[in-house]
């Protein structure tokens, strides 16, 4: 056991943890965005409500276990990322007076902690409005009605869209970086993984951002 703790807390191991938890969270995002698109179905939330009920049912034991894993991995990913950032910052010491970092590295790769931190704050608010209210609390309305109500607030919707743009920044670097961390790099497939990751990440975040845009501008325009 001692060797394992040492392994996952070494400089390479910490990054391995970031990659594996990150890829798990990435898979979750794919599931989440596909389900969210049910909200665009013009059936007054019928399909979405069925989905939310099946997903949230206490009898859905496998999902309850995965859900626990999801929260655990999310926290581990966040805390581990903050630790990496802190120790790496200390390793650099005095910053340069002039540093043209844009000449040698991508913008996204240099601002993972910043994009990650804002996404974390977003997630706290996001979980409070939906997960805490509708899964743990005793709301008077259905989740669909809650979604409609929440996104009718422009401030909330625009913060949501802003967070999705940052999530896209985060994922664009994250996807290809995870494979590099796993040691999966080869001229055969790395160029493909890089482009595939960019496209998929933008699609995921655009899918999420579509929801507030829809409820803010399109949903009521047609009337019920």
């Amino acid at each position, binding site marked *: 056991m001692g*060797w394992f703790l*040492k*392994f996952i807390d*070494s*400089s*390479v191991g*910490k*990054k*391995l943890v970031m990659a594996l938890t990150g890829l798990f969270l990435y898979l979750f995002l794919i599931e989440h965005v596909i389900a969210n698109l049910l909200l665009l179905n013009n059936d007054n939330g019928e399909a979405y409500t069925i989905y939310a009920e099946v997903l949230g049912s206490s009898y859905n034991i496998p999902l309850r276990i995965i859900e626990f894993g999801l929260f655990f991995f999310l926290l581990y990913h966040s805390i581990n990322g903050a630790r*990496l950032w802190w*120790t*790496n*910052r*200390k*390793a*650099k*010491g*005095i*910053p*340069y*007076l*002039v*540093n*043209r*970092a844009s*000449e*040698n*590295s*991508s913008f996204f*790769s*240099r601002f*993972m902690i910043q994009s990650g931190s804002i996404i974390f704050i977003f997630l706290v608010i996001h979980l409070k409005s939906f997960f805490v209210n509708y899964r743990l609390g005793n709301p008077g309305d259905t989740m669909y009605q809650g979604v409609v109500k929440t996104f009718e607030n422009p401030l909330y919707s625009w913060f949501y869209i802003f967070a999705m743009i940052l999530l896209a920044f985060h994922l664009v*670097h994250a996807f*290809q*970086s995870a494979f*590099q*961390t*796993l*040691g*999966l*790099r*080869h001229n055969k497939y790395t160029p493909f993984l890089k482009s595939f990751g960019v496209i998929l990440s933008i699609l995921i975040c655009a899918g999420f951002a579509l929801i507030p845009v829809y409820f803010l501008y399109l949903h009521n325009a047609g009337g019920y």
Partner: protein
Amino acid sequence: MAELNLHLKVWRQKNKEDKGRFVDYDIQGISTEMSILEMLDVLNEKLIKEGTDPVAFEHDCREGVCGCCGIFINGRAHGPLKRITTCQLYMRHFKDGETIVLEPWRAKGFPVLKDLMVDRSAFDRIIAAGGFIAVNTGGAPDANAVPIPKHNSEKALDAAECIGCGACVAACKNASAMLFVSAKVAHLVRLPQGKPEREKRVFAMLNQMEKEGFGSCTNTEACSAECPKGISMDVIAELRREYFRASLKQENN
């Protein structure tokens, strides 16, 4: 042959303990045929004549193979050009009247000794920890006793090109020495002679890297972009595979 008048902003620091500061110098009549180190030689001659302390910087071969010189020039390790060392940067790449900012490599693992000169002995200690092969001495073995495919020896040499200048650490926002360590690990593991100690080597070198206070790699790829020898990010992926393999195999680590 044109001549340049330049404005320099140079980091001056008396010793390890001194806090250090930037000092401005104006210098006239610099030939475009000079290297940036020769420009500093001219500046130092002037400073000595004036009775002040010349700017300390490290250099040796001045032809891009020894790895001694290394200055952070205008926000880039070894200056704005790709795949060259500081000594190979010529003044023709600067404009008349330009301000040139000269800073030492910044990393906890590379403490500044004086001015632009840093202590890179941490790299020596990382190599001493495992960046070698151990063989019995004796009569020279037959040249073809160990068959090595041409492709493998070429790949090993690609990694062996590293001159240990430290530009990777300097360019990395985490001051990680991953490219340096990986280049050595990949160089040796790509050859049959390096295989017997592969597990021991990757642990020892990485442990030493962490002990020296270098950061960890977050795949920004700045190191590879600034490497004067163009060492590929492939070696870092290879180091990780080596580390995972060794972790699963080794009894004690």
